[in-house]
């Protein structure tokens, strides 16, 4: 007798069930073949023929392996006998998991779409949350308010606070619990190992109380120490205490040498002292009530409970303007300006984050709509199953619960994948943040974030789960059980729903694409900065006022440093300036020859003032458009004061004449010292490529009467970073107490200044691409499904003479009506929402017709492609086969 088991095993080798199950199947099939063989023998068939006849069905059924493995999946567990919510849920979850395994492509699509949507949401939301929602790490942080002065007449939104005003504000206000003022100077810290540069803060002694901080060790500044000529004392920051003194509690009374002056350590700040930002130590501000230092202080106030910022603003304005009568007439121009702390430091990022949040929410919405369409289509193919369940007594609620569990599980898996992806994305975003971001912002995932993700996940589950579930449970039992109606068709209402879903999906994707198109079309990177970006290194060496107390000492120091730098091989040019491009602003008020007379306290708008050494313009690559640049013959102030001005300055003051040969003077200088303009420079984008251009005046640093610190700029022939080592050596050889710091190439600086614009253009691009892909998948899915539903109808059309071409056109037309409707809606939404983007755009109109045109073309093109595949399938139908499917 043939070895039946071997025969079966050979033919079903590809079955791959688990061991015992497989051998049971082989046993059973072998037994069947044997029975058949014996029966044939009994009927008189020869053994050879009997064997051939018995085996024949195995050979002629190529899909047997597939059919068997599909049918042989583990049996679904029986539902629990007694109703029990928890075990019902567990049962539903087991069924749902099995369902997901059985439809891997479907599950993967749903989970993938959700994960994409949620990842974007999670990342952007937690950025937004950390920036704007999480409480700041201060006690009663909502009551903190930033103090400053504003002077619209000087074209300055924030001027800084004058020391003279500080005293009146602090003593005469009635709306604050406390006020503190500070400045953020740097110090050279020496005599403690190699010299290093530390960021410090000069603060009034109220700062500890205002912030509600308790010292780890020691005491606060005394009132006397916080007065001019008070004793030099310092509060050590927590991390400096750890790094310099390893947390030694005997540190009080020891000395810290800052800018070559000894400061006595009187206390240690707690770890929570994260304001003023980046300060590693505090020294007393010691303000003067009759100072002429101008406006340079920052302030922070804590409002009394129940006081609004507006009331406080009115209160301080009253105090400020009252000083006019006491002889401080400049207060006619300046006014206090109060801003909630978070707004002041992060206001720039609010619009960006909000717009991105909207974009991400739209992508999530599209993903949900898509999933809803998928579920709806799937629900129709499951109508039979639902009908059987209903027939065997499942209640409608039970079925809805089962379907909801399935979608809930999909949402859960999608949510988890999305949160994990989102954390990666958050890490990427944080690494892109600029270094001006306050350090006290803490980008951690917190409970609000987790809650937000849960809500998003649950909402999408409901959105795409409940609706199709209700539709499916409404399926007619007898109808769907009907043999000839095994493939349930959609009702008119269901088709309508699907169409609405597809149209809205296209519309949303279209609106997003317009936004990202506008962002991508910005002309920022095409802007000519007006200075050299490549192969330029900039660094600082901060001269301390103590050792370099005379202007000549500073001049000599920088001349020496620059000469040695120029001698380094590969250095093409080197120079110094107080504020090179992208390094901030130092403002002054100037008057120009020929200006109309002004009233005593009226000042012209603020002008950027830069002190420069010879060689600076060559190093930074700025262009002289008229006259000459400074050279070594210009001498000192006593000789012949000279200046250069920017095109903007020249245009403002001498619109019709050449600036060269004209004279300028400081606004406050009544003695009539005038600088002769010897050259005009092309405007530079000093505040960034997307920043404004302010008029600028450039003066030779050797004609400046006071000591000053410069930034050194060097133009190299190749990689500028190779200069860092030699520069450090040169500096150490000139003055071993001076650290080299703030070292950056100009291209790094430029990148950093554009990070936000670049980051959100990029993010937007990614989001809208995802949206387009999702929408295309949606169109494709729905049209394919519609074609499969219309197979019979198409067959009849072709049988009565329709050509494939006509069928193709017919299917395409139906699909493109949806695409057209979606495009029109998307256009309307985009036009309406364009105003929101206005603030973020640079050099492009929010209604740019080119962008809109391109996006319409792209969406219609993608829609056409998504329609073409099912349409071609319909056109190539064999009418005979098509009719037989019924």
């Amino acid at each position: 007798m043939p070895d039946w088991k071997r025969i079966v095993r050979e033919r079903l080798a590809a079955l791959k069930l688990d061991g015992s199950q497989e051998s049971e199947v082989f046993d059973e099939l072998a037994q069947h073949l044997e029975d058949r063989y014996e029966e044939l023998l009994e009927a008189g068939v020869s053994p050879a023929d009997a064997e051939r006849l018995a085996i024949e069905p195995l050979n002629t059924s190529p899909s047997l392996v597939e059919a068997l493995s599909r049918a042989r999946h583990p049996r679904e567990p029986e539902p629990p006998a007694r109703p029990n919510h928890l075990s019902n849920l567990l049962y539903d979850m087991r069924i749902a998991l099995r369902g997901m395994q059985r439809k891997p492509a479907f599950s993967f699509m749903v989970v993938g779409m959700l994960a994409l949507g949620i990842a974007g949401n999670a990342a952007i939301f937690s950025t937004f949350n950390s920036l704007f929602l999480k409480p700041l790490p201060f006690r009663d942080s909502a009551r903190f308010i930033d103090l400053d002065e504003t002077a619209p007449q000087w074209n300055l939104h924030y001027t800084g606070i004058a020391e003279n005003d500080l005293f009146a504000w602090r003593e005469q206000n009635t709306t604050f619990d406390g006020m503190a003022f500070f400045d953020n100077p740097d110090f050279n810290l020496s005599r403690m190992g190699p010299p290093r540069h530390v960021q410090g803060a000069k603060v009034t002694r109220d700062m500890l109380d205002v912030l509600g901080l308790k010292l780890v060790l020691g005491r606060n500044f005394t009132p006397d120490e916080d007065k001019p000529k008070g004793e030099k004392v310092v509060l050590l920051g927590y991390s400096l205490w750890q790094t310099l003194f390893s947390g030694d509690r005997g540190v009080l009374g020891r000395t810290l040498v800052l800018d070559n002056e000894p400061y006595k350590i009187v206390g240690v700040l707690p770890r929570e002292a994260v304001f003023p930002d980046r300060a590693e130590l505090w020294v007393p501000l010691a303000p003067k009530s009759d100072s002429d230092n101008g406006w340079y202080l920052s302030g922070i106030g804590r409002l009394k409970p129940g006081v609004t910022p507006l009331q406080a603003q009115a209160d301080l304005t009253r105090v400020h303007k009252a000083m006019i009568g006491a002889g401080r007439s400049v207060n006619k121009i300046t006014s206090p300006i109060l801003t909630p702390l978070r707004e002041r430091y992060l206001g720039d990022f609010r619009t960006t984050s909000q717009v991105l949040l909207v974009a991400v929410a739209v992508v999530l919405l599209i993903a949900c709509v898509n999933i809803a369409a998928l579920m709806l289509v799937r629900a129709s193919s499951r109508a039979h199953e639902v009908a059987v369940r209903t027939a065997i007594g499942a209640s409608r609620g039970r079925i809805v619960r089962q379907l909801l569990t399935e979608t809930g599980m999909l949402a859960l898996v999608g949510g988890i994948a999305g949160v994990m992806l989102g954390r990666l994305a958050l890490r990427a975003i944080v690494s892109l943040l600029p270094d001006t971001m306050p350090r006290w912002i803490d980008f951690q995932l917190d409970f609000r974030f987790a809650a937000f993700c849960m809500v998003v996940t649950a909402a999408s589950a409901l959105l795409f789960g409940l609706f199709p579930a209700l539709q499916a449970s409404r399926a007619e039992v007898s109808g769907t059980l009907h043999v000839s109606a095994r493939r349930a068709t959609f009702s008119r209402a269901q088709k309508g729903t699907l169409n609405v879903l597809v149209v809205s999906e296209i519309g949303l994707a279209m609106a997003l694409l317009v936004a990202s198109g506008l962002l991508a079309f910005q002309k920022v990177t095409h802007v000519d900065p007006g200075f050299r970006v490549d192969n330029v290194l900039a660094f600082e060496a901060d001269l301390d006022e103590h050792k370099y107390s005379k202007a000549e000492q500073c001049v000599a120091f920088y001349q020496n440093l620059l000469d040695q730098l120029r001698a380094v091989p590969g250095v093409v040019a080197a120079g110094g300036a107080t504020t090179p491009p992208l390094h901030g602003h130092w403002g002054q008020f100037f008057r120009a020859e020929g200006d109309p007379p002004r009233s005593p306290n009226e000042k012209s708008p603020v002008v950027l003032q830069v002190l420069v050494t010879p060689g600076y313009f060559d190093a930074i690559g700025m262009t002289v458009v008229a006259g000459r640049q400074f050279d070594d013959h210009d001498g000192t102030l006593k000789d012949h004061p000279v200046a250069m001005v920017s095109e903007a300055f020249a245009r403002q003051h001498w619109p019709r004449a050449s600036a060269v040969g004209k004279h300028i003077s400081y606004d406050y200088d009544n003695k009539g010292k005038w600088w002769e303009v010897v050259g005009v420079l092309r405007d530079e984008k000093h505040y960034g490529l997307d920043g404004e251009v302010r008029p600028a005046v450039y003066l030779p640093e050797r004609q400046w009467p006071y000591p000053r610190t410069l930034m050194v700029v060097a133009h190299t022939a190749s990689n500028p970073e190779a200069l860092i080592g030699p520069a450090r050596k040169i500096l150490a050889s000139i003055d071993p107490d001076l650290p080299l710091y703030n070292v950056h190439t100009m291209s790094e600086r430029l990148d950093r200044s554009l990070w936000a614009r670049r980051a959100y253009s990029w993010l937007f691009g990614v989001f809208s691409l995802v949206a387009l892909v999702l929408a295309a998948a949606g169109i494709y899915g729905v049209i394919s499904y519609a074609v499969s539903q219309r197979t019979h109808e198409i067959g009849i059309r072709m049988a009565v003479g329709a050509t494939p071409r006509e069928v193709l056109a017919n299917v395409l037309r139906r699909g493109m009506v949806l695409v057209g409707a979606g495009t029109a809606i998307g256009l309307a939404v985009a036009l309406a929402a364009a105003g929101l983007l206005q603030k973020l755009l640079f050099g492009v109109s929010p209604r740019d017709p080119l962008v809109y045109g391109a996006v319409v073309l792209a969406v219609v093109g993608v829609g056409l492609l998504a329609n073409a595949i099912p349409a071609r399938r319909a056109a190539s139908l064999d009418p005979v086969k098509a009719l037989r499917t019924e």
Partner: protein
Amino acid sequence: MSIRLPDRELKKGSAELLVLSLVEDRARHGYEISKLIESRSEGMLKFNVASLYPLVYRLESRGWIQGKWVEKAGQRRRRYYRITAQGRKVLAAQRQGWKQFAEAVRRIAGVDYA
């Protein structure tokens, strides 16, 4: 267009009903089920090893029938299938569906059985 009976779809749709009916009263093994379908339909319906077992396993995986290995004295081990409580409900529903279908066909076509 000619219609051949039993049409493939028709057979597929009815197969579940046939198997469920055959194991309704007593447990049967696979070969027995295939013989019974052939003999009771007088040769009109035939199931071979390749068409029967995927169907039987599918019914078993849905929990409508349950298989069990049985060893009887003097015989080899065979797998017997019996209907489950759930299977009975499905069978009742399918019978009802068929009755309605047959009735509908009878009303239109004037034949006694489809």
